[in-house]
């Protein structure tokens, strides 16, 4: 009787353990789903400059020279906190964060602008292209 009790306890605990494992597994499955969904939310865009590709993996992407920036451009002509990109309704917006050299979209100085595919963004002496993500990395 004592043994049966113990075995049953162990089985219950094991069932809960397996359930926890399955849930972790499910969470990982859903991670890829969430990634795909993010691709839809963000219209699957990215920023590109010669030699580098910057993914837009979350909302409120900070572009600048500071170490804490999401997209870090180590160039003295770029301010430490230069610009921030946000997404809403599937449209990305770029916002100047009080940079010294300003933000130019297709050659026009802007404080805040909605971006369209293949827009060219100038930050200081750097030139970034806002474009749809290619599936494989191209160099």
């Amino acid at each position, binding site marked *: 009787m004592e043994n049966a009790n113990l075995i049953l*306890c162990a089985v*219950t605990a094991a069932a809960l353990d397996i359930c926890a494992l399955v*849930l972790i597994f499910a969470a990982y499955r859903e991670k890829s789903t*969430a990634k795909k969904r993010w691709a839809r939310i963000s219209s699957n865009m990215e920023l590109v400059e010669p030699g580098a590709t910057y993914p837009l993996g*979350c909302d409120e992407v900070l572009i600048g020279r500071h170490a804490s920036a999401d997209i870090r451009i180590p160039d003295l002509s770029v301010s430490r*906190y230069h610009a921030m990109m946000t997404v809403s*309704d599937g449209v990305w917006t770029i916002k100047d964060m009080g940079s010294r050299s300003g933000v130019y979209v297709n050659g026009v100085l802007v404080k805040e602008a909605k971006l369209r595919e293949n827009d060219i963004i100038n930050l200081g002496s750097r030139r970034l292209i806002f474009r749809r993500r290619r599936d494989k990395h191209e160099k």
Partner: protein
Amino acid sequence: MKSNPFAYVISGLFVLLAHCAMLANILYNGNYEQIGDVWSLAAAVLGLDLAWAILMPFFRQHTHTVDFILILILNMSLIFQSCFGGVHLSVKHMITCIAALIASRIGFLVCRDHNWIARQKKLIWIGIGLVMIVILLFTGSRSMWIDMGSFTIQPSELLKPLLVMACATSVAEQQKKHKLLWFNVVWENLILLGITAAICLLQWWCRDLGSIPTFAGIYAAGFFMRICYPKAKFSKKTLIGAGIAVLVIAGIGIKLAPAYVRDRLFVDIWSDKTGNGYQQSQALIAIADGGWFGKGPGKGFLHNVFAYESDIVFSTISEEWGLLFALMMIFILLLMLAVPLINPPRSYYHGTLAAGVCAAFTVQMALNIFGSCNMIPFTGVTIPFISMGGTSMVTSGLMAGMLIASQSPSFGKLPAKKKRPSARPAVRKGAGA
């Protein structure tokens, strides 16, 4: 569900399996007089599982892990609470469980779109103010309960999800700096600090000291997230200053604490086994007596001790189900909080929601478990979802809803594609329950 049917079905099946194993344990090990009690409990638990699994796809969300963990925990809790001192379905707890599930839906719908909720920011502040006024007017200075005839509610609990929301909605304001004397300040940060301080003072006034660390924890999580926000530019000086301020306030707090609080801070429970230390010493003895595998559902002794179903619930579960199972229950709760580590929130707003909920839950669990086990002062705090208590269950449900929202965020309308765009969340007022 549509996006990941396989994971959905498998998760649901294994949740059912885990509950079945627990019910089998009760059937063979439990302490019941009529077998019908076990069947009614089984029907309630499994019915709730199935209903949840069927209803969930009607909400437009694309991740369900947190939902499944939520139903797993809630039904475990229902089973635990129904078994204390003898098996019979606890209808009261079942109703609060259903209320928690509904609250989680509300929380999800309210919180998933940060642009929408950011516009309702003032409503949240007004909500906090209203709840505080209600506390001031109705609970009285030495109590935290409002008596509503057949049941009581604890309005201060409602402040927890509201504070999380307030923290989350103001995180994006970090660049709107204003000059105040010789400081650059962000108005919303000051407002938030003021709200937190006001809540803490109010809790002090109500002598609900146990919940102050919870609010402090939520605020700390929000504070860390604000520091991280682009161009928040918190200097090291500010940080050190804030740290010192916290220490000084804590020191003054302990100095000024009323005598009965200090008695609680430094109590030797073993020399006062029948007086002040009764609950804790019995709780520890119960854990020791239960061992790893417990005495069997319903066969414990601790259900004779006051607050067995809320304040010292960890020990009660430990005694009847074993420390191993109690630890695993905690593990499942932690798993729910850890889901954002696997599937990250994609904005500071949703991140703050996740971090705030994590802070609130871990602080509450820590206060309850470590307090009842005499590692820290004993306060009457509940373990989310496990302890009995309607208000606590509903607010925990709301916060679980926020976790779900951080998992299935909405960033406005989806760009038109093959699929139809997801509708705006139905506008519902605040978090009331």
